[in-house]
């Protein structure tokens, strides 16, 4: 076989048959919206994979570029009338392409393709010098390194400051709550752990306020989303197993995430991608998936009543839907929490459910396209005259901050939990 990449593709061969090329994915794809070509949209990728399997398509630069034009936001799969799991198909294709290039990751393979063109443009030399400093405290397996890969630092992309001390290191492993109240494992995620620690602090404050016992397992790792988007399934599997072990060490009622992508991994990608490959892990991954819940969802369920602030002006707040939260059914809950907060004047933006353009590592390889996807988002936020835009995913926070900055806007981007915790503190 010419391409010799059949294994990952075999895994999804049956799924490909579900696609009837109706074109519904064209309506929901942020990448297609910007590139405007069929190679960027889900059914085009399905067609390409079908030809890879038929072995009459070369693995040249154009195939890599087509497969890189996906944010893995899941919007196409979410709205597909035939339930085609396009995200799984793209992941499998990337895995196959990486194997073909003889590197472990699609990003590595794509890097080969892109390097010459991108390196000079992005001032890579500077990045190489700075990288060891920047990533001193971040483990090699963290997806954070993929989000800002070494050659790309020095890009015009705005990069968050890393925290002096990661969130997990700041707290004991178990913070005892009131008896009879839920025991929750907090799955922190890399962005919150290393950069946006204030999100972690907010989550902690809110769940302690509700009397929960909060467990922050030291053994937890990156969820693997940036890695999975690179098609390195073996690495994701290792992460999944380590995370399972760390979480299972403690008895708990819920596993809480404060990041759309981490939640999506535990909830959906682990069982569908890793569980399918490893029947022996399936049952444990299913249990984990069933326990996993987004922080806003659980706060609402546990009846959080954001305290009366009484004094001070109301903050005008709008909300952005992270794709991974929206496609897993978290959309009403954060809005309800915000609406119920006395210090918040809630206002909807136009197209709140549209992707911000981050797409894990998409913005690294297609920065201009990623900002083009972001453009209507920034405009919509500014049009609401809100002071704060809240969202449930640190990846979105990064991207939206960047977009707003480029529009010269001073709207503050916050995690929903930060806003809630701030109101809570003000009420005390």
């Amino acid at each position, binding site marked *: 076989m010419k391409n010799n990449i059949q294994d990952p593709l075999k895994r999804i061969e049956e799924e490909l048959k579900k696609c009837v090329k109706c074109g*519904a994915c064209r309506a929901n794809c942020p990448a297609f919206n910007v590139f405007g070509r*069929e190679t960027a949209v889900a059914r085009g990728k399905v067609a390409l994979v079908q030809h890879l399997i038929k072995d009459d398509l070369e693995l040249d630069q154009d195939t890599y570029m087509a497969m890189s034009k996906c944010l893995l936001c899941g919007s196409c799969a979410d709205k597909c009338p035939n339930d085609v799991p396009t995200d799984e198909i793209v992941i499998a294709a990337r895995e196959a392409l990486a194997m073909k290039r003889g590197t472990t990751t699609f990003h590595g393979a794509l890097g080969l393709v892109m390097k010459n063109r991108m390196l000079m443009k992005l001032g890579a030399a500077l990045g190489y010098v700075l990288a060891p400093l920047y990533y001193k405290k971040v483990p090699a397996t963290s997806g954070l390194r993929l989000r800002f890969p070494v050659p790309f630092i020095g890009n015009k992309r705005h990069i968050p400051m890393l925290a002096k001390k990661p969130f997990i290191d700041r707290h004991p492993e178990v913070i005892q709550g009131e008896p009879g109240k839920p025991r929750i494992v907090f799955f922190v995620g890399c962005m919150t752990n290393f950069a946006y620690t204030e999100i972690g602090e907010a989550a902690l404050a809110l769940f302690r306020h509700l009397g929960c016992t909060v467990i922050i397992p030291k053994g937890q790792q990156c969820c693997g989303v940036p890695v999975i988007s690179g098609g390195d399934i073996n690495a994701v599997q290792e992460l999944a197993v380590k995370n399972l072990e760390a979480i299972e060490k403690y008895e708990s009622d819920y596993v809480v995430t404060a990041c759309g992508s981490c939640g999506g991994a535990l909830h959906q990608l682990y069982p569908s991608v890793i569980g399918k490959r490893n029947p022996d892990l399936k049952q444990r991954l299913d249990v984990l998936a069933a326990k996993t819940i987004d922080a806003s969802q659980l706060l609402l369920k546990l009846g959080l009543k954001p305290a009366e602030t009484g004094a001070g002006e109301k903050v005008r707040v709008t909300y952005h839907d992270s794709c991974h939260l929206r496609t897993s059914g978290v959309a009403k809950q954060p809005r309800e929490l915000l609406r119920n907060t006395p210090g918040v004047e809630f206002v909807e933006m136009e197209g709140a459910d549209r992707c911000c353009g981050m797409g894990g590592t998409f913005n690294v390889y297609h920065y201009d396209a990623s900002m083009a996807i972001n453009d209507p988002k920034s405009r919509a936020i500014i049009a609401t005259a809100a002071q704060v835009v809240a969202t449930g995913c640190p990846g979105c926070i990064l991207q939206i901050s960047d977009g707003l900055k480029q529009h010269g806007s001073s709207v503050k981007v916050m995690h929903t939990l930060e806003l809630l915790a701030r109101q809570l503190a003000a009420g005390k």
Partner: protein
Amino acid sequence: MLDSKLIEKLTRIVGPENITTSRQDMICYAYDATQVEFLPDAVVHPANSQEVSEILMLANIEHFAVFPRGAGSGFTGGSLPKSGGIVLVTTRMDRILRIDTENLIAEVEPGLVTEQFQQAVEKLGLFYPPDPASLKFSTLGGNVAENAGGPRCIKYGVTRDFVMGLEVVLPTGEIIRTGGETYKGVVGYDMTHLMCGSEGTLGVVTKIIFKLLPYPEAKKTMLTIFDSIDGAAKAVSTIIGNKIIPTTLEFLDYAALQCVERRFKLGIPPEGRAVLLIEVDGDRELIEKQAANIHELIKPLGLVQFRVAQNAAESDELWRVRRLVSPSLKDINPNKYNEDIVVPRSKVPDIIRAIEKIQQKHGITIVNFGHAGDGNIHVNVMVDNSIPGMEEKAHLAIKDVFQAALDLNGTMSGEHGVGLSKAPFIEMELSPQQIRAMKAIKAALDPNNILNPGKMFPWP
């Protein structure tokens, strides 16, 4: 195959960014929703009518085929490059040129997505009613070329009824204007309506002037379930006979109903045999009265459930039953042939009975749903093509379904068009004289047969 000199000439017309010959792109512009594949030799994305004109002039000199394409969401292969040649994609031409709120018209380019146009006019309190199921991704140019319909057609009409004028690039490359901005106009042949539904065989539409309506003040959705298909059909004629024209009258037969219920458990009463989803729109007081009237009228017809939505969210909930039909069909069999016959609306029970006999004759499952208000039934022949002989059986059944529709004074296609898939059957519906007249028009406008060749008719 196109030689490199030709590609160079095309590149000069559209610019290097807007032409591609890579294998990846050929694969991605080889399909539509028909599930067949024909790879083109090149794909071009022109920006305006001038570029389209130059491409077509070149095609006449060099004798290569040009296949116009919008979103590629058609069901009959109308945009597929059957014989190779170039695919001409209209989606870069996607601007709204003007919305004239005094004359209630709008001028748009063909690559604009239908729903985006609707949203834009709705912001101004205006209404563009045609609503093909693909409206979230299909283009207006494609809608015109296929004369697209949709559930609201019973009250408002099809795409053609909203097209007032066009800019068309003829197959020879000449740019003409047809129709105009006036509601009346009888000078010359009606070229506008000739182009509507011509499936990209007579010209490439590059601008469209649409008629608009005021957006209706309110709408009301009702989900009604009957204990027999005859009851539902009688309801349709009773409602319309009593001078109420609903916005939509969508129906599901028992097979469709069972499919949805099995998979999604919506709680449909077990004695239910057919569903009618009825929507009325207009003046708030009027539709309240209409809804009450409808309830009274259909009560004696074996009505087992009558639900009225009180708000938009509830209306959406009622529509779910209709929306979930397609996704649940695969539970029967993996392969679906979706035909869209039309019969006079009083003949709906007859066609359903005829289809029942066709199922028994061929031993296959057929699920029916669709637009009962205008007699347009989506006939879904569900088979498993991995079983030898099934595909042939499906085709025989489809032929019988067409014949049954024609026997009831109907037509074999209300919305999807002829394209490639229905071309072999067209002689069942059209006389040799009709076909000859149509081919004469084609030959007169496209002497070199370069624009979307091999479609619509059986070609030698």
